[in-house]
């Protein structure tokens, strides 16, 4: 990978003028103490409670968590596609190349979606518009953001479909989403998301709806594209196994907070938070055949009534009275490792 002074130097596909967004020292995205809440009839659901992380060029960050942990909401808040109301962002910043997206005028921010930051979703069938041909949907990016005409943009769409390895792309450019298999549909979503060569790609459970062999293909395609384009990639998942080979860093979320952050292999080898350890123990392993699969007892907290202290304490075997009163901050427990547990050192010792 070449060093990066201007993004998009070496790519033939990019016909655009250099972006006005240029990363400083490779730093693309800074999420800073972000809060998101949902105002519903049942009260205020605190979906995200002070999340901070950075994303650099060429880096892959996996955000791991159960449903309701706030991982998808984080992604949608970065994209700016939350429905507000009911969602509200009471505090925090999302800076892209130094520009705060949250305070940016909506029209300016809209223009970052696609060319700068883009996103793919879990269920490609429902995420693609059923009544438009797939090529048209990909080409729409070039027509609306780049002002290309119909045939030029369709040519680009075909090339992108070829790039994401859709067989017979030229013939299938006019086909509709329902005429493709699940894996092919997700490839089309990916083609659409990378069309304008974004600096950041957010993949929200990109393989959850797919079967295992297709999962691996999609993950390796994402990895390939990310390396080819020096993208910053955020992979949102509940499945550690899927991201292990691809991610550089992992942030584990629980009840709207990051509870542990470390390099992939460190987390695998030695989790630093009881929740992470619980997640790892609940993955079926061949060498434990015949034994009862361990699971984390209890349920994730109701986001309208997050427990005082550490949100994980009702489900934690190590919980002490301090866990019920004091919220553990995310702190560096070893070089390059952060955990939000009062007993992180003990957990790390195993």
């Amino acid at each position, binding site marked *: 990978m070449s060093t990066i002074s201007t993004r998009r130097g070496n790519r033939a596909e990019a016909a655009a003028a250099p972006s006005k967004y240029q990363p400083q020292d490779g730093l693309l995205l800074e999420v800073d103490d972000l809060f998101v809440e949902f105002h519903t009839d049942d009260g205020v659901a605190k979906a995200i409670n002070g999340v901070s992380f950075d994303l650099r060029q060429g880096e892959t960050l996996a955000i791991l968590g159960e449903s309701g942990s706030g991982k998808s909401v984080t992604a949608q808040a970065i994209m700016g596609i939350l429905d507000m109301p009911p969602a509200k962002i009471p505090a925090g910043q999302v800076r892209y190349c130094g520009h705060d997206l949250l305070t940016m005028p909506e029209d300016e921010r809209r223009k970052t979606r696609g060319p700068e930051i883009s996103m793919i979703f879990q269920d490609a069938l429902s995420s693609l518009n059923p*009544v438009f041909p797939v090529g048209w949907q990909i080409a729409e990016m070039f027509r609306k953001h780049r002002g290309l005409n119909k045939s030029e943009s369709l040519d680009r769409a075909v090339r992108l479909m070829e790039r994401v390895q859709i067989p017979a792309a030229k013939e299938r450019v006019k086909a509709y989403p329902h005429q493709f298999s699940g894996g092919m549909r997700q490839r089309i979503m990916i083609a659409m998301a990378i069309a304008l060569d974004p600096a950041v790609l957010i993949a929200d459970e990109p393989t959850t709806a797919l079967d295992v062999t297709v999962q691996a293909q999609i993950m390796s395609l994402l990895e390939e594209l990310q390396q080819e384009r020096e993208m910053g990639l955020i992979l949102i998942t509940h499945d550690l196994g899927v991201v292990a080979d691809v991610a550089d860093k992992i942030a584990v979320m629980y009840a709207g907070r990051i509870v542990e952050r470390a390099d992939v292999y460190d987390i695998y080898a030695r989790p630093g938070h009881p929740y992470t350890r619980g997640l790892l123990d609940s993955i079926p392993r061949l060498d434990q055949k015949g034994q009862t699969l361990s699971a984390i007892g209890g349920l994730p907290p109701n986001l309208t009534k997050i427990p005082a202290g550490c949100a994980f304490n009702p489900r934690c075997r190590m919980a002490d009275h301090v866990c019920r009163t004091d919220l553990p901050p995310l702190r560096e427990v070893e070089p390059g490792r952060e955990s939000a547990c009062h007993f992180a050192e003990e957990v790390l010792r195993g």
Partner: protein
Amino acid sequence: MTKYVIRRLLQMIPVLIGATFLIFAMVFALPGDPTANKCGERPCPAEYVKKFEEEHNLNDPLPIQYAKYMGKLAKGDFGTSFREIPVKDELSERYVVTAKLATIAILFETVLGIFAGVLAGIRKGKFIDNLVLLSTLFVISIPIFVIGYVAQFLLGVKWRIFPVTVNANATGLDSWWQLLLPGLVLGSVSVAYVARLTRTNLVENLRADYVRTAKAKGLTTSRTIGLHALRNSLIPVVTFIGADFGALLGGAIVTEQIFNIQGVGGYIFSGIHNRDGVVVVGAVTVLILVYLLVNLLVDILYGVLDPRISHD
């Protein structure tokens, strides 16, 4: 597609035969003397009755009568009404009026209905949404003859904006202008249905995943709603409007009566009233045919609008 159309056209034959036979059997098998009242206060002379029966094959068994009648119909001979006016002439004249009326009503319900539905849908829960919901409920709840008479009285008689009744001899633009108010009355209930259908579908589609994708693609709000969400929301709406058009082409008895319109509805109504079997069967046969054809068009259109529906 061609195969589908041919198959559907072939399917129409048994439907058409079955439906017309039922109508024919019901009208002609009813007890009663078809020559009654034809000669004023007195009963008709025996020769006339005999001639009438021969002309209409009334002495044949019913299926033979039916076959002979359909044979004539297929040649374009619709027979004459008891008033000695060829059914074909009167029907084609009245069909022009009914088609104009139906067109006005359909345009009205399409334009206003979709417009109101979209406004309500994108402002769900807000004032304009409640206004649309309440006013459409109001329109749906009122019988059409009340709407018709009130509109005729206020807009025609009192404020003199529209002609009060329709003059059968008007031509050109005039013939359209005088049908405008009746058309609006006729379309009023459907406007309400179209508005509600559009609103419900739009609200549902605005929550769809592909609308979220459209936002994530950096499209403008107007494109996200106006193209991506609306295109999907209109599929059931267009189907409804198509079916409604088919129904409206069958004439509108109440509206025609109120505004003195010489349409198909009144023609059939008076045919039934006068026991004029030739008129009833002839007109209804045409109605069935038109309805079947409009429905075929709607089904084809449906496949065009929604690529997931295959006609192969």
